[in-house]
């Protein structure tokens, strides 16, 4: 406990008077998913742009409106809200505070609101590529996915993944099986919440013992359970791989990077930072931001350690598919896709 | 061992339950403590047993002062206690209960019940107990449980045995057996402190009687003193022990029980085709050793016990199949045998307990609302009427002594117009003063013309109250006899002998098989007129 006392100082950034705020949904800022990514975007803005930030974590639905109201009291320039659950509360706050700006992640209004910018993703596009890659990388001919709770932001991953596997089968005349999701019936395997990681681990073990060797968990922190199961399987001599979602798991879940085939990335952090930057520069624009393969809002992460094991052909095919999707020649559809 | 208590006082807060008590118990002496409910007998014994720390005073054993920080110390010093409320773990076996606290173990703390079983058998053989070490305690009759308590003390080699109201829940036979055991123990050199409200047995067995009133020793007297003397000493006023009730004037049969049969869940027939009638204005006492179907009989009439067959008609109206509420509403007053479990919600105020089964009836309840004023008024009257000792009707019933709790139940059940009054063990554990009072109220109800059914394992009580006596044996009525039938005949009938044979045998053996010494009750029976049958 010794050392020099720091000099009094105030750090001056580019926009010290700009206040950026964020309200999470009930998942909280450590949900390993969209709350966390969005929060990272705001944090980056704090670092890069020198803005002031304020955060409010919601414990339950009851907190949304209260939190937003609190933010209005804290004179926020722009408030980021995360998730469709906050849609009504955000619209309400926006109407009552026409001079404040808002951005809402993963939600789209039927009619645009002048001071709310929706940030949404056509995740199925990237998940499609992941499905294709998974099918190609599978040695057992079986791949799997499971979700946390059956909601569109989850099932859109699963739909895209299913289509990607189907595309591979169609193109290659193979019969790679997908476990855990039936796109037609919209029914499959879910861990039931975003908490019970050991349940996620058990689900993944069941997948592996049913023959799957590439698994994509779409379940926030429960994905770590899948990671643990895959790690364990590999230590036991099996060759299972993981596909991460939301962020590049090779970087954000380094415990499992050696099993990380690839990730389906939604660049929410970047989108959030961009929106704030634009607003700070006085260039707020309420038209929805739709993350696609084209604008790199969604992407398939690099294969990292598996790069060498994926054939050049496969990589080319994936590139081609990506191009087709961008050009609109190939449509990846999900009931949950943005309209 | 010789025991001496010197100047023992025990205070609860500012209230002294024992005040400067001196007591001497000689070697191999049976020393009896007499006193009203709440006089402080149990408190004194709890002090002696190390459960309470005395506020003042000292305890000497064989002349040496001792101090007990807990029952463990008292036990180690050779004191054993059988509590008023048994201290047995109901779900344990006899052997487990006896081993508890003084276990013999094999390596690693593993229980060795074999040793305990052997000890139990030894003691059982010595005193002629019939106790199965592997029986589960809750399945045993009260009398046997009591023996388990005594064995517990003996196994621990108690030189001084405290018996706190051991006979309150025993049948006459069991009581006689217990008194016999006490004599044997005494013969083997054990000193016994004996607490009881039953003057007859106190006089029969004690060497010295010490009377306690309001926490103070009043006097020590010899067992030759008459019951009236003892009662007066205890209560501090003249007590009228003889009820001197007028002869009954029975009217028509109001309660008719036909072929009543109860089979319990385990498949045991607890009531087997029971038939009897009770007339208006008469008291039928149901006598019998506990566990012969008395509980089932009263509960079957009330409706808490499912009936397998038969009928119960009250003034021509069938009661079987009706809900308890309907039965109560058709004019049945019911005093259950265990007041604190079935008779009272002890956490409720006295006021509320006084309307426990009347709360939804006028004037106390209307629709779903209750009239608190009426309830309060009712409490004031009843408390006065029945002389319930309390300073506030809003006190919880748990704050009352046993006798006063019983008065509350009795007051409630007698407070409305009845077509039938049923009371089980109406005076169990109650002191003589209160017994006198409660008995008078029961007779008064009879004299109003209500048929009354008294269930009691207490022969004194049965003979005191009954106009007719029905004896239950193994779920069957083993005869209905006049109220003045002798103890001996009743005792034999309770053991399964038919009424006629019993009468013969009693005549025959009267002189040489006197269980306890002659009783005032016996005298009283002579000037009572026989009724019924």
């Amino acid at each position, binding site marked *: 406990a010794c050392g020099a006392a720091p000099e009094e100082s105030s750090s001056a950034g580019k926009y010290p008077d700009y206040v950026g705020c964020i309200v999470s949904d009930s998942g909280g800022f*450590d949900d390993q998913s969209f709350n966390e990514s969005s929060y990272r975007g705001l944090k980056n803005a704090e670092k890069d742009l020198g803005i002031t930030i304020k955060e409010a974590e919601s414990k339950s639905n009851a907190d949304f409106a209260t939190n937003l109201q609190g933010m209005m009291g804290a004179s926020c320039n722009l408030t980021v809200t995360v998730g469709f659950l906050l849609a009504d509360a955000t619209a309400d706050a926006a109407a009552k505070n026409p001079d404040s700006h808002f951005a809402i992640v993963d939600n789209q209004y039927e009619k645009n609101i002048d001071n709310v910018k929706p940030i949404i993703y056509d995740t199925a596009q990237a998940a499609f590529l992941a499905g294709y890659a998974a099918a190609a990388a599978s040695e057992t001919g079986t791949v799997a996915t499971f979700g946390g709770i059956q909601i569109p932001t989850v099932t859109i991953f699963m739909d895209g993944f299913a289509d990607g596997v189907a595309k591979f089968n169609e193109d290659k005349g193979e019969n790679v099986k997908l476990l855990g999701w039936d796109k037609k019936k919209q029914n499959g395997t879910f861990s039931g919440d975003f908490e019970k990681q050991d349940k996620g681990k058990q689900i993944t073990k069941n997948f592996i013992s049913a023959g799957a060797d590439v698994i994509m968990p779409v379940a926030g922190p429960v994905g770590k359970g899948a990671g643990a199961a895959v790690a364990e399987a590999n230590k036991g001599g099996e060759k299972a791989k993981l596909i991460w979602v939301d962020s590049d798991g090779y970087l954000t879940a380094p415990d499992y990077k050696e099993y990380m085939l690839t990730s389906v990335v939604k660049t929410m952090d970047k989108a959030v930072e961009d929106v704030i930057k634009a607003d700070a520069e006085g260039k707020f624009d309420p038209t929805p931001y739709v993350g696609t393969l084209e604008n790199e809002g969604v992407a398939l992460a690099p294969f990292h350690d598996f790069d060498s094991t994926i054939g050049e052909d496969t990589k080319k095919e994936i590139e081609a598919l990506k191009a087709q999707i961008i050009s609109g020649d190939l449509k990846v559809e999900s009931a949950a896709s943005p309209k | 061992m010789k025991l001496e208590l010197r100047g023992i006082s025990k205070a609860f807060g500012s209230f002294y339950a024992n005040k400067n008590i001196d007591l001497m118990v000689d070697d191999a002496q049976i020393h009896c403590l007499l006193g009203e409910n709440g006089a402080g007998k149990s408190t004194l014994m709890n002090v002696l047993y190390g459960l309470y720390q005395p506020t003042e005073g000292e305890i000497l054993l064989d002349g040496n002062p001792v101090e007990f920080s807990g029952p463990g110390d008292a036990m180690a010093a050779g004191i054993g206690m059988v509590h008023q409320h048994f201290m047995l773990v109901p779900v*344990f076996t006899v052997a487990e209960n006896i081993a508890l606290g003084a276990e013999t173990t094999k390596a690693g703390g593993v229980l060795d019940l074999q040793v305990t079983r052997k000890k139990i058998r030894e003691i059982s053989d010595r005193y002629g107990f019939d106790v199965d070490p592997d029986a589960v305690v809750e399945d045993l009759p009260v009398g046997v449980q009591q023996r388990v308590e005594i064995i517990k003390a003996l196994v621990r080699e108690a030189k001084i045995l405290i018996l706190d109201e051991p006979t309150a829940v025993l049948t006459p036979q069991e009581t006689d057996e217990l008194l016999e055991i006490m004599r044997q123990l005494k013969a083997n050199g054990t000193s016994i402190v004996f607490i009881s409200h039953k003057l007859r047995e106190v006089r029969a067995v004690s060497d010295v009687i010490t009377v306690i009133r309001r926490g103070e020793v009043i006097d020590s007297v010899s067992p030759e003193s008459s019951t009236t003397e003892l009662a007066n000493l205890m209560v501090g006023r003249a007590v009228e022990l003889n009820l001197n009730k007028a002869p009954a004037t029975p009217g028509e049969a109001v309660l008719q029980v036909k072929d009543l049969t109860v089979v319990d869940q385990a498949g045991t027939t607890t009531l087997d085709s029971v038939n009897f009638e009770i007339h208006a204005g008469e008291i039928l006492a149901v006598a019998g050793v506990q566990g012969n179907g008395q509980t089932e009989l009263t509960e079957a009439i009330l409706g808490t016990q499912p009936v397998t067959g038969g009928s119960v008609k009250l003034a021509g109206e069938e009661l079987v199949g009706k809900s308890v509420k309907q039965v109560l509403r058709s004019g049945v007053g019911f005093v259950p045998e265990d007041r604190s479990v079935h008779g009272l919600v002890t956490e409720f105020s006295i006021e509320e307990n006084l309307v426990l089964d009347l709360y939804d009836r006028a004037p106390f309840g209307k629709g779903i609302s209750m009239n608190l004023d009426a309830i309060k008024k009712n409490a004031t009257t009843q408390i006065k009427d029945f002389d319930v000792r309390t300073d506030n009707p809003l006190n919880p019933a748990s704050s009352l002594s046993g006798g006063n709790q019983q008065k509350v139940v009795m007051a409630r059940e007698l407070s409305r117009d009845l077509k039938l009054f049923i009371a089980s063990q109406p005076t169990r554990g109650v002191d003589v003063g209160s017994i006198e009072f409660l008995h008078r109220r029961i007779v008064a109800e009879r004299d109003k013309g209500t048929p009354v059914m008294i269930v009691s394992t207490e022969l004194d009580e049965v003979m005191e109250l009954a106009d007719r006596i029905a004896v239950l044996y193994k*779920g069957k009525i083993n005869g209905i006899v006049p109220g003045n039938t002798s103890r001996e005949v009743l005792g034999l009938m309770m053991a399964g002998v038919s009424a006629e044979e019993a009468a013969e045998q009693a005549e025959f053996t009267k002189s040489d098989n006197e269980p306890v010494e002659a009783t005032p009750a016996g005298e009283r029976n002579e000037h009572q007129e026989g009724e019924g049958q």
Partner: protein
Amino acid sequence: MTSSTLQPAISVLPSKKTSIILSVIAVIVFLCFGLMGNSESAHFQLNSAGDAFKLPELVFPGKASNIVIGLLLLGIAAYSWIQRKKGQSLATWMIAIAAILFVLSFLIWVVSGADITTISLASLLAGAVVLAVPLVFGSLSGVLCERAGVVNIAIEGQLLGGAFTAALVSSLTKNAFLGLIAAGIAGALVSLVLALFSIKYVVNQIIVGVVLNVLVSGITGFLFTTVMQEDPELFNSPVHLPVIEIPLLSAIPVLGPILFKQSVIGYLMYLAVFIVWFGLFKTKWGLRVRAVGEHPKAADTLGIKVNRTRFWNVTLGGIVAGIGGSFFTLVAIDSFTKEISGGRGFIALAAVIFGRWNPIGAFLAALLFGFADNLQVILTIIGTPVPSQFMAMMPYLVTIFAVAGLVGRSRGPAAAGEPYVKE
């Protein structure tokens, strides 16, 4: 009631409930699973990777096997009615067989009707055990406390506290065993609060339990955010307990992985169930504990220190549950997150009651829950038409059915929940 003095004169017929349930089950199996069932075959694999020898796959033709099982069950049901007429009830082992037959036929029915008609019985059972581990430890804690007369609603908090501390200590020390020990201590600390407030200050035990859950959840959540998240590398990267394989034995199909290929905590679980059972029912200690939980005053009059016994038992319970909680972070998952115990403490509480306050009963109840939970997952994997949310309800519905239909009234330790105050 002192009916033991009486001989049964007439005997009454045993309750109809068993016979009715058996008949209903038999008819369902025969008609719905059998006659109306799927004619595909259901395949059950017995082997898992690393087994010593191969067992053949069990294959049941769906319709045919269920018709046979249905007939068997109908037979048992008929027999039970006949027995009932004679005044006898059905032997417990017959009921057990009927239950097993029912589960088997249900499995055959769903598997033969699913998209994939093969499931691995080995992983179904192994997974059931894994899901049950924290439940077993939690319920043992419940049994230890309640047997001594202290209701333990705080199991959830003990599990969570154990999970958090194990993660923290194992990360800081890089030693999993220290993490395990620390988890036990954390559980004991939670227990200490429970004991202090409920025994010394005579606060209602349920209040303390409920509040402790909130408190532990709050503290771990707070420290997770303020400490762990600040530097996960340092504070939240627990070293794991190794899985110890017992050579040869672990290669036995089905049973091997369950019994002989476990982490230390897994082995501890079997040991703990046995020790707690043996301790409670065969030793001096257990006799005293049970006496304190049933009739503290009686125990007191025999010189047993009631509150001291309670205090140590509650503490011991905390240690056990804490260790159970460490399973989350030292075996199952690689790091701690908020609410990682996910309500398992409450399921454990249910297992205590369901298992009738008996360690083995609680163990079996926990296993049943784990089985239903894992089965549910496997059935969604092979593709059932039932919506996922209804599949997820299965373990809970099974528990309701088992408790209401089969177990019914259960009698716990008589003094549980009551403080013992001595004058």
